[in-house]
């Protein structure tokens, strides 16, 4: 299905940014890009490529519980595709989008990804968000030899020929942030809390090993709450009893809001307590409310407030397309990279064939100098070299970047952390 706008704000507010949509800059056609290569040459495997179009799929949840998180990602993907099209497309072809709704339901993700690959023959798919949805579509992509650009920071322990991971794997995100807090806040004791599923558990496992083996600190508590849980009273009391230097949190979804509201209500604020989270981006802040987060820290690779030219242009374009009120979080930015990385690989391969595109990607030297987060490079192992950043939240829902690491090599199977 094709969708031009998403309804994520009350309709009273929506009217305002329809105007923005109209004012989109006219298409800038770079004629030198339109090489006249016939479809048969750039596509030997029967993908949906014509002489002037190429079709890709976008597969995110538009409905269900995950729609909240996945909205930004699919908006960013559409923005990138629009910008690429305005520049003349890829190999002279305009990108057309078929969007499917994963409906926050893993089997539906599998079904829809199969439809995109088998029926629509899309050249690439940008999508999936949760680990579970990625795990569900992975066998389909491997079986049908598709190509998936997956935007979320995730637990690692995976490397598929058919997936390019544009978010950070766990060690990239976690280790530098922990080093920073140990050094900067002289933290020795940590309390780990997360939602109960694979990503928080794996992240906590890595964090614990790093804290105990590298930093010489101590984990004084580790706790997992069911997804959707909204009662944190008892955990907060446990934390109070253990008095950790740092609360290290990976709570997701609706629970996240409850967790921070209740922390604040229990009088645990940044004045008394250091809190470092790996699950809060600007998107989440919108629901949690800046006042409940003020002074706490997030580790991400991207923050909307990052001060560089790439990012300023990106934020401006995003707001023009999706409204002045929209916010951009880490995953949204990572999703934005997907189409660009694909474009780079396809142009170097001179073909849309998945095998050729993957082969180019695996050379390990595709770089994006225009990424909003700064410079990124695609590693042989299908992940991105990227920096880790620590941001401190302000009341207005934006973060101040207080620390930026060096470029970190992605390592989905980290030795010593398994």
């Amino acid at each position, binding site marked *: 299905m094709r969708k031009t706008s998403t309804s994520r704000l009350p309709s009273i507010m929506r009217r305002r940014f329809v105007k923005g949509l109209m004012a989109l800059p006219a298409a800038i056609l770079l004629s030198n890009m339109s090489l006249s290569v016939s479809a048969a040459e750039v596509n030997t495997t029967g993908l949906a490529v014509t002489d002037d179009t190429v079709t890709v799929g976008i597969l995110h949840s538009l409905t269900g519980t995950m729609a909240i998180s996945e909205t930004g990602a699919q908006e960013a993907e559409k923005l990138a595709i629009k910008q690429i099209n305005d520049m003349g497309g890829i190999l002279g072809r305009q990108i057309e989008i078929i969007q499917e709704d994963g*409906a926050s339901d893993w089997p539906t993700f599998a079904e829809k990804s199969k439809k995109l690959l088998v029926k629509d023959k899309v050249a690439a798919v940008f999508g999936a968000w949760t680990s579970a949805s990625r795990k569900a579509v*992975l066998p389909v992509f491997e079986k049908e030899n598709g190509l998936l650009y997956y935007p979320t920071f995730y637990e690692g322990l995976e490397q598929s020929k058919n997936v390019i991971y544009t978010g950070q794997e766990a060690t990239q995100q976690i280790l530098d942030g922990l080093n920073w807090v140990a050094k900067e806040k002289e933290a020795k004791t940590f309390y780990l809390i997360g939602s109960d599923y694979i990503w928080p558990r794996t992240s906590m496992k890595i964090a614990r090993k790093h804290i105990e083996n590298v930093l010489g600190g101590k984990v004084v508590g580790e706790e997992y709450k069911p997804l959707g849980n909204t009662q944190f009273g008892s955990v907060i009391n446990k934390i109070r009893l253990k008095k950790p230097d740092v609360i290290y949190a990976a709570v997701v979804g609706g629970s996240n809001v409850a967790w921070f509201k209740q922390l604040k209500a229990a009088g645990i604020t940044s004045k008394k307590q250091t809190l470092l989270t790996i699950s809060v981006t600007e998107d989440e802040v919108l629901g949690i409310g800046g006042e409940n987060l003020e002074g706490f820290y997030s580790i991400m690779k991207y923050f909307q407030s990052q001060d560089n030219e790439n990012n300023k242009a990106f934020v401006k374009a995003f707001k023009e397309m999706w409204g002045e009120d929209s916010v951009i979080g880490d995953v949204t930015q990572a999703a934005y990279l997907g189409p660009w990385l694909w474009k780079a690989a396809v142009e170097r391969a001179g073909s849309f064939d998945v095998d050729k595109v993957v082969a180019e990607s695996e050379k390990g030297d595709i770089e994006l100098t225009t990424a909003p987060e700064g410079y990124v490079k695609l590693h042989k192992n299908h992940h991105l070299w990227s920096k880790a950043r620590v941001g401190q939240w302000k009341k207005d829902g934006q973060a101040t970047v207080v620390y930026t690491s060096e470029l970190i090599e992605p390592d989905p199977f980290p030795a010593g952390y398994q």
Partner: protein
Amino acid sequence: MSFVYEKLMGGKKGLIGFIILAALILVIFPLFLDSFRLNLVGKYLTYAFAAVSLVLLWGYGGILSLGQGIFFGLGGYAMAMFLKLEASSPENTAIQSTPGIPDFMDWNQITELPWFWEPFTSFTFTVLAVLIIPAAFAYLIGAAMFKRRVGGVYFAIITQVIAVILTVLIVGQQGLTGGINGITDLRTLNGWDITSDSAKNIFYFVNCILLLAVILASRVILTSKFGRILLAVRDKEDRVRFSGYDVANFKIFVFCFAAMISAIGGAMFTLQVGFMSPSFVGIVPSIEMVIFAAVGGRMSLIGAVYGTLLINFGKTTFSESFPEMWLFLIGGLFIAVVMLFPNGLAGLWDDYGHHITHKLRFITKGVSKLIPQSMLRKVEDTRS
């Protein structure tokens, strides 16, 4: 012969309905659908097992279970455990810290295969487990509830809570169960590649035949004295009790049987889709199964299959074209079925169907005379 005719087929009307269904799923779908759509239909038909089980349980027995997902899930998980162990051979998992165990266990620092996984290395055990574990679990629940005369609304709510408990347990114990991701990446069955198109086609037909067999078995039960007692229990439980029947035993039996049917569906799901996840165990899928049965007609075994197909086709089509409309539509449909057509599709068929069959017979006769065979084949080509 008359036994077969009356008991299995339910007389002339039942026979016709059964033959139409069999022809539809065994002949027409495979002829007219490409392998992607056929595999989708195969997936839907696994839900039909649960819908058929609800016809027995709810339509005839008056026992509304909002926990058929429990049994669908148990059957599916049993099969998934077997397939996962096969997929986790030491060679395939050499990259792990402990090779030879499923990947999610390795991620959760489990270094040894848990005891309850051990027997699932045997295919025979797995097939038995698919049938017996859900039935035994249903027996436990049923014995505890029906002997204490928990029924109606309370039973519905308690089964729902059990579904929640099981979901939280599966999600929470991810080292043992694969957590919210479920058990994924299942590839072979006794060395046979189940992801290939030929395997999927074979599973499709196995699935159809099992479904038809389940419908026949259910008919045998419903046409026996057991079936009449079941109806009697639904309408006047006290009277049955005062006719000297231990009502609880009848309810337990039908609950166990329904659990077993649902579990077959779950196992077939795992085989055809290649994974199993807790999202089939919880409240939402369980209630959806009730929708399937209700739309098909809660008193019609065959209607349940049509209800399942209709809703799922609708869901797929609508979510491709108007995802926003889908929930409005399904919600509205649900209300309409309850308020206006309590007997669902089967009821509509009974009211208006005879005219249609009559006309249809006339038309097909005419059409087959008019159109040469080659043209029929052409129609088929353009479809795929």
